[in-house]
């Protein structure tokens, strides 16, 4: 035998590297370096910055330890923003994901006509910048001459009309729903593709066995779409944690901070209030929340989703 004399023992990294230079350099070291530069470094720098007080202008920063975090815990605006992020997530999980699924299902089953057209229309807002979406809805939901209120009144739902942005109890939901409107195309495309991969015969079999659309959707489609749902939920989670553009263009946190979300608070604190350290601390909180949620989703919700 001419192979390693220490067979049975797993060879060390260096032995491996010597034997597979190409794989080591291009397959392991380069990706690691890229990861370190583009992901690792910014994260570490943010954590580092969060331990300082810094106004972004002076060259020197003041070390304050965990003071930023201590303040964050008592900061009512941070709390509102955090809760808003969860409300946002709940709305985006409920509305665009569900709507996307339903539309995809309807298109696949030819309940809706002109599939290609509908698909394009629903997907179109995804390609729009959130800035223009925001401006558009500012007009549509405007209490003075907005089209939405007029439509509601004309169909006899006038009692539902409220101050979509002014009422602090509904404003965050308005924003989340607008974001959902712009986002629906994304889950729809995912589910549309996913439904294409679900064997058509399982739907046929269910139909023959007497299942209506509701049962086919809940008992046949959704269980088989779990891997897609896993991806969609992840996407939605990150999308909702980044919720920023809409807040910035539509409300800027108004009324009185009730539409603040974490991403917007980071911006406010860092660039507006020139507290870069505190902004960094909130960024770290966002990071922690996303990581935690991703973990929960992976562990609980999606257990076994990718088993065949």
């Amino acid at each position, binding site marked *: 035998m001419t192979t390693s004399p220490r067979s049975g023992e797993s060879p060390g990294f260096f032995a491996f590297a010597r034997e597979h230079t190409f794989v080591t350099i291009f397959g392991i070291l380069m990706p690691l370096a890229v990861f370190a530069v583009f992901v690792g470094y910014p994260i570490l720098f943010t954590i580092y910055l969060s331990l300082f007080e810094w106004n972004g202008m002076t060259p020197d920063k003041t070390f304050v330890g965990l003071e930023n975090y201590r303040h964050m815990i008592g900061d009512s605006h941070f709390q509102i923003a955090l809760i808003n992020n969860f409300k946002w997530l709940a709305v985006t999980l409920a509305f665009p994901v569900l709507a996307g699924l339903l539309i995809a299902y309807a298109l696949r089953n030819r309940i809706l006509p002109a599939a290609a057209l509908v698909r394009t229309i629903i997907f179109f807002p995804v390609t729009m910048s959130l800035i223009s979406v925001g401006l558009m809805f500012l007009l549509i939901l405007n209490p003075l001459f907005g089209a939405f209120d007029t439509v509601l009144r004309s169909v006899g739902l006038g009692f539902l009309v409220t101050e979509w942005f002014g009422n602090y109890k509904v404003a965050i939901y308005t924003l989340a729903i607008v974001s959902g409107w712009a986002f629906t195309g994304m889950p729809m495309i995912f589910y549309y593709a996913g439904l294409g991969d679900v064997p058509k*015969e399982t739907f*046929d079999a269910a*139909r*023959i066995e*007497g*299942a209506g659309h509701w049962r086919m959707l809940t008992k046949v489609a959704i269980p088989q779409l779990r891997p897609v749902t896993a991806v969609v939920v992840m996407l939605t989670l990150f999308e909702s944690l980044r919720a920023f553009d809409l807040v910035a263009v539509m409300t800027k946190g108004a009324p009185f901070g009730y539409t603040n979300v974490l991403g917007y608070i980071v911006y406010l604190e860092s660039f507006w209030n020139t507290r870069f350290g505190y902004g960094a601390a909130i960024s770290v909180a966002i990071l922690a929340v996303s990581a935690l949620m991703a973990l929960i989703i992976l562990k609980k919700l999606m257990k076994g989703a990718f088993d065949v």
Partner: protein
Amino acid sequence: MAEVSLTHIEKRYGAHTIIPSLDLTIPDGEFTVLVGPSGCGKSTTLQMIAGLESISAGRLMIGGVDVTHLPPKDRNISMVFQSYALFPHMNVRDNISFGLKTRRVPAAEADQLVAVVSKRLKLENYLDRLPRELSGGQRQRVALGRALVRRPGVFLMDEPLSNLDAKLRVEARSFLSKMHQELGITTVYVTHDQSEAMTMGSRIVVMNGGTIQQAAAPMEVYRRPANRFVAGFIGSPSMNFVDLDVASPAELVDATNGIRVSVPQHRQIELAKSGLRSVTLGLRPEHIRLLAAGDTRPGATSFKIEVCQFLGSETLLDITHGACRVIARVGPEEVVKQGEERIFAFDMDHAHFFDPDTGNNVALDR
């Protein structure tokens, strides 16, 4: 139990007509096999009966009810798919009882029905397993169970055995036949495997290009094929076809290859009646006889053995005379060698005459 009748059924996809006009009545309790080459419209026909595909024109009756435009669930049918189409996330019990639940059968009754069916299908020990934890044969039985448990009026199967290996397939064939005998449910069974069709069906419907070529009992289709297509499709190896000129009703010749065939007295009338100048002679391999060396009876012709296939119970020979090439089936006791010249004769009592233009069997043409 129900009779299925298709009247002038038509299927179009846009400008493409897949099935121009189909008429077929399947009597109550009959096991009918739809057979034909790939793409001939078997599945489409079955799907139309099931209600999974719309019917472009015509009328479909099941059990005396016009179901042409009814949804699948109101047609009193059940179906087994080639891929089984089991619900991958449900265990065997839930798969089998799916249709009972949608039809709101009380739980106790449903359990009872599932128990009976799973016992019959030998699945009682697998009820809590997921489909992916079963073998191919077991999955196939689960699919059967799901279709059977409701006792449908009509049982539709689209190539249910083609995902099984050869041995399991033979077992499943006889199992299905037995089951049909016991339950007597009207069954429409699609296959493109003609031996499956021959062994299982009480009636075979041979299709090609969206039209029915012949619908008859298996032996009838084998013995009296309606046309050259059916003759060639049913039987393995396929029937031999030789184009010959009609010299006289008593004699057919192939001048270029030097083949002369004399027609026995009782078959001459058919030929004479048809008035054909040339004819396609159809002969199954077992009707080409190997003669002893030196046999000089009329019609005896010398052929060269190109290929021998020894199958144990029989031997298949590829033989040529000039440009004429046919397959002969001989008994296992015959001693033959590749490359030999031997003398063969056509058994004209079993020969079929087909019109070279229409392909129709001259004997059945009227």
